[in-house]
């Protein structure tokens, strides 16, 4: 068969979501000749439609359907209905993302073994190792055109990076460069090189930054084996009496409910919507939700230990010029418990424009202490901290008791509280970040609280044993053979690294597994 596919065609693989996980899996399967339908809740905006304006772009791409929050994290107070800053659009959050593409470190796949039991944390080793994933990391880096791999040159450093680098040198940090970025430093894969526009978070209008929107998806479509249906919000996954999934109910672009039959269903709606969908698919056979015999669906929600440090200097920096994430320091990414916490963190440059800085620098603050910081905008440099946070059972996605979306399904509540390890790590990073900038003459520094989560992980985690998690090492449900999870919700633990390269590597690996099992007719 060739795309487009019939609703009654029960030979297709249905993928829910077209972001890093779903978009990649879709293309990989299509390349192998497997029929794929991707259902994507958001609209399709091509890259020339992107907008160089923070709030307008947010309005165009971000997921703004209502969610609620609870727990002691500050986001619950400052942005009670916006726990996460992620995307609802073809391409998913790979439209918004900055492009930092790092491999996990060896020990991070075995967090429990290396960190030991941490009180209050639900640590577990991944059922796969770095060695097993390495060949797929290599494929992903090639696919995404990651700088400093495959003989691709690093990006040139912008002003924000130069400040970071000067500070890193002063502090004696050794591993500081312009990063491993899925951004073209020269033309590659029919996409042009980075023009240093400075709106990476708003979608790259040049197509220099990798996104499934204009790489995986059109490549898959070209095979005739992939159909992407935008504006298609999946509500429920259906199953038969044997417990196998048979299709999905979704609301189409005209607001009509449809049933798409499927041989296999792969869920890739990011770590809030994916567990919400499994929970909303509860039935008499699976009263706690699909794939939830372990009770772990929605639990162990991780968002990385984050924070930012901004600093004001006497002279201009113009941090907003050029790539948003223009460089990295990796010296603190190691596991060194002498610092007072397990795991490590990365320091990466970041910049926001005036509209977002006003919203995120110190949410809720007012008066001259706040405004005098913005007055120094031109003289500001900034970095983002991203470190491993602890999985905790009660940090979780649940269905709201009363509130429903416009189709009548319960919305998601995101409950999150920092673990003491998260706090210790953040405080350490704030100090290092501020010291770094002071070492190059900062006159004022700002330990800025976490933004709504851009990295959302862990809510359908991989585990060796069925009782500890939701999926096995191939992202396949422990309970239902033809149900897969293809996004960051599979992560057993978060590592210190930005997650997308790992999500893409897992999706490539999963495609191999699905093809193999389909051929063997086990699914």
């Amino acid at each position, binding site marked *: 068969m060739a795309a487009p596919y019939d609703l009654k065609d029960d030979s297709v693989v249905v993928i829910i979501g077209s972001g890093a996980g779903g978009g990649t899996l879709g293309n990989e399967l299509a390349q192998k000749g497997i029929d794929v339908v991707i259902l994507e809740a958001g609209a399709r905006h091509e890259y020339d439609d992107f907008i*160089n*304006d923070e*709030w307008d772009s947010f309005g165009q791409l971000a997921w703004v359907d209502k969610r609620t929050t609870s727990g002691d994290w500050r986001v619950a107070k400052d942005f009670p209905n916006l726990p996460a800053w992620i995307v609802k659009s073809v391409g998913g959050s790979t439209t918004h993302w900055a492009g930092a593409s790092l491999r996990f470190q060896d020990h991070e796949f075995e967090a429990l073994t290396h960190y030991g039991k941490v009180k209050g944390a639900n640590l577990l080793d991944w059922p796969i190792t770095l060695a097993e994933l390495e060949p797929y990391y290599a494929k992903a880096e090639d696919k995404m055109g990651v700088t400093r791999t495959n003989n691709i040159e690093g990006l*040139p*450093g*912008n*002003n924000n990076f*130069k*400040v970071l680098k*000067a500070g890193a040198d002063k502090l004696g940090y050794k591993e500081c460069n312009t990063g491993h970025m899925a951004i073209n430093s020269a033309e590659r894969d029919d996409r042009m090189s*980075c*023009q*240093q*526009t*400075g*709106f990476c978070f708003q979608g790259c*209008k*040049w197509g220099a930054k990798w996104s499934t929107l204009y790489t995986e998806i059109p490549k898959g479509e070209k095979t005739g084996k992939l159909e992407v249906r935008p504006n298609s919000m999946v509500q429920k996954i259906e199953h038969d009496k044997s417990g196998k999934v048979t299709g999905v109910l979704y609301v189409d672009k005209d607001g009509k409910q449809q049933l798409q039959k499927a041989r296999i269903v792969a869920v890739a709606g990011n770590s809030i919507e994916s567990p919400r969908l499994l929970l909303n698919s509860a039935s008499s056979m699976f009263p706690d939700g699909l794939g939830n015999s372990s009770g772990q669906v929605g639990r162990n929600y991780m968002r990385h230990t984050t924070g930012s440090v901004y600093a004001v*200097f*006497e*002279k*201009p*920096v*113009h941090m*907003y*010029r*050029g790539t948003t994430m223009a460089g990295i320091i990796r010296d603190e990414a190691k596991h060194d418990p002498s610092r007072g916490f397990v795991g490590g963190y990365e320091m990466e440059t970041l910049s926001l*424009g*005036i*509209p977002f800085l*006003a*919203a995120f620098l110190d949410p*809720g603050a*007012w*008066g*001259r202490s*706040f*405004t005098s910081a*913005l*007055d120094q*905008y*031109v003289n500001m440099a900034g970095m983002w901290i991203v470190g491993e946070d602890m999985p905790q059972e009660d940090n979780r996605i649940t269905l709201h008791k009363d509130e429903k979306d416009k189709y009548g399904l319960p919305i998601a509540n995101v409950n999150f509280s920092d673990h003491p390890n998260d706090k210790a790590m953040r405080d350490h990073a704030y100090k290092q970040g501020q010291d770094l900038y002071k070492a*190059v003459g900062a006159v004022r520094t700002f330990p800025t609280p976490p933004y709504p989560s851009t990295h959302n992980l862990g809510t359908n985690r991989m585990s060796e044993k069925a009782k500890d998690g939701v999926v096995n090492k191939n992202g396949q449900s422990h309970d239902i053979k033809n149900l897969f999870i293809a996004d960051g919700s599979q992560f057993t633990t978060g590592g210190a690294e930005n997650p997308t390269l790992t999500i893409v590597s897992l999706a490539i690996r999963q495609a191999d597994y699905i093809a193999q099992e389909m051929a063997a007719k086990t699914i």
Partner: protein
Amino acid sequence: MVTIFNRKPDRDESGPSGKGISRRDLLKSGGSASLGAILIISGSSIIHPKFAWGLETTNLDPQTMATLIQMARDVYPHDQVPDRFYAIAVKPYDAKAGEDPKTKKLVVDGVADLDKRAGKGGYLGLGWEEDRLAILRKIEDTPFFQTIRGGLVTGLYNQKDLWPIFGYEGESFSKGGYIARGFSDIEWL
């Protein structure tokens, strides 16, 4: 409808201008007050005689609007930012007051409370910022304060015309990005 309208600046502050109402007219018509001796309030308008803009109100009385403008500046003070931007930031409350009685009450009561706390002469009569801040600190947890403050985060800082004042250059795609426009021009390090 509230409009921020441009008018020709008065040559001298009190003289009649080509368009709009002169300060003398306003004074004659009575009931006028001034905000920091800069904004003139009368009838349904607030007028900035020097910098050539005015604001007409429909649902809120202009005195209330003028107080909101001052409050906006006190919450997010930038001395280099002209009043016009603060006026644009709070003007939607006039329209909202027309559509939603709850909003109207929130704003009207909130401003009345500011005036009451300020005593004779009201909030606008307090000459020192510090005196006005003392009042704002007392009400900072109220829905009125939080609504106004929250609205300003986008209402003020998302005005494109404001960005150059902070040195933020905004959209850059049409100019070819910064690859040839100083993305790595730092010299002082």
